[in-house]
């Protein structure tokens, strides 16, 4: 069975065509990499797949459920780690997980053991009673991953899960991803800007200006372009100009500033 099926999906924000006519499938248990320059439409695609944004047209199913007509079924079956932090800094790590368990209607009896399990996995059990605003950026990311897994989803969406993390933490996060896939058969759908991470995916899609321009295994992509590194594949398909910068320099600068401010506030 397909974990994700996307058919002619579009999303317009006013004049901006963030996603234009995108179709692809992700097999169950696959680690699927979603690459593309800034502003390509990766986050917008994830938002539609996780029912946060309504598609302008087209359709998609996740775990066999339609994202428009069976929203709650989709939601029960997916875990999400967003590009920007979404944990509550005023609560402790454990309280964040409890809250999540409550929101997903988890059985009370299984919650404590599950909390222990996911916190052990991301090595935060010892810090569970500390408020999240005392966590480092890497710890928060790990907590978000633990939270995304709390309700044992079948599909895990990770939007740049390793952004701003040191190599050790990035490697650790990848070890979780591999372990999850092997042990639980979870489908992982992730975006990343790190090509060495894309190499680790089963298949990779490259998105540019709202369209998918290439989709295959990393090896096949490199072979078809005739290069040794995914970087070169990426540049081959998306060109070397900076996207946000050329189209809308002021907007891009503002966006960068906003992100920097959000990081500073942590």
């Amino acid at each position, binding site marked *: 069975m397909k974990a994700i099926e996307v058919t002619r999906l579009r999303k317009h924000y006013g004049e901006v065509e963030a996603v234009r006519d995108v179709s692809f499938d992700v097999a169950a248990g696959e680690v699927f990499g979603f690459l593309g320059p800034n502003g390509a439409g990766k986050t917008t695609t994830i938002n539609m797949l996780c029912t*946060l944004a309504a598609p302008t047209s087209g359709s998609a199913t996740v775990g066999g459920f339609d994202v428009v007509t069976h929203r709650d079924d989709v939601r029960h079956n997916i875990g999400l780690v967003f590009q920007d*932090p979404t944990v509550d800094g*005023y609560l402790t790590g454990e309280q964040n997980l409890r809250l999540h368990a409550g929101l997903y*209607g988890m059985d009370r009896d299984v919650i404590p053991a599950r909390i222990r399990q996911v916190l052990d996995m991301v090595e935060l059990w010892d810090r569970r009673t500390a408020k999240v605003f005392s966590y480092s950026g890497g710890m928060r990311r790990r907590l978000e991953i633990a939270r995304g897994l709390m309700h044992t989803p079948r599909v895990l969406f990770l939007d740049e899960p390793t952004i701003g993390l040191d190599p050790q933490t990035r490697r650790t996060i990848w070890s979780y991803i591999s372990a999850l896939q092997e042990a639980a058969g979870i489908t992982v759908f992730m975006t990343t800007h790190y090509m060495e991470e894309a190499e680790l995916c089963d298949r990779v899609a490259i998105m540019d200006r709202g369209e998918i321009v290439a989709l295959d295994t990393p090896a096949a992509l490199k072979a078809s372009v005739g290069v040794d590194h995914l970087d070169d594949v990426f540049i081959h398909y998306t060109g070397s100009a900076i996207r946000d910068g050329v189209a809308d320099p002021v907007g891009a600068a503002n966006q960068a500033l906003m992100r920097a401010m959000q990081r500073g*506030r942590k």
Partner: protein
Amino acid sequence: MTRAVRIIWLRDLIRFVGDPTRIMAWLIQPLLFLFVLGTGLQTLSSRSTHGVRLTTFMFPGVVCMVLVYSAMFSAASVVWDRELGFLRELLIAPISRSSIVVGKCLGGTTIAASQGLIVLALAGLVHVPYSPILLLAVFGLQVLVAFAITGFGVMVATTIKQAQTFTNVMQMLVIPMLFLSGALYPISNLPAWLGVLSRLNPLTYAVDPMRRLVFDRLNVSVSARHALSPGVSWWGWHVPVLLEISMIAVLGVVSIAVADHKFARPD
């Protein structure tokens, strides 16, 4: 629906209990309004209050002030949740968006009404009798007012999405609302244009019934009662307490309905 409402309500309480500075402010603010502001203003006027202590007069007003600030603070957390990202955790959970709005309103109501309890506990110090009926009635009214104002704040919070803007708008709304509500001074003798504004101010209809409840239990002269708790009138018609209370309830329900409507729309 009820599970999600309870969870969201509980989160607000847990955050509140886990925040020592907020608890400090929660404790100190009523004292500040009643004993610093009240006592300070008292030095100016003794003749105009017909022998009633200004702090006694202000007591029901202070109850409302405390509720307003507390409710607005809770409503602001909706904007902060959006700005700091946490709102998305709620938006992708398998719960209805209505339960987020209702949970937030109940959380704000609980915290505001509990702060109102502190003011009630201070009643004796400003010569308001500890009559069980009075305290119970004022508390009931407090819960309603806290609910309505939180609902109103949450409605504003669903319209204004930047925390900075929200804070500014709230300041612009709250201060005139308090000044024109009768919380700090009687509004019956204001110049006509201010009188009109005070009658348009929803808070007026929260302060008035509360003050009437208190004055019913006080031993004051008819002239004092007439000057300090004259009630609200529309073109000479005396607005009954029950209508005032219904207006507050309607404000709360309509606000929540509007908030829910705005909030329910996906991007």
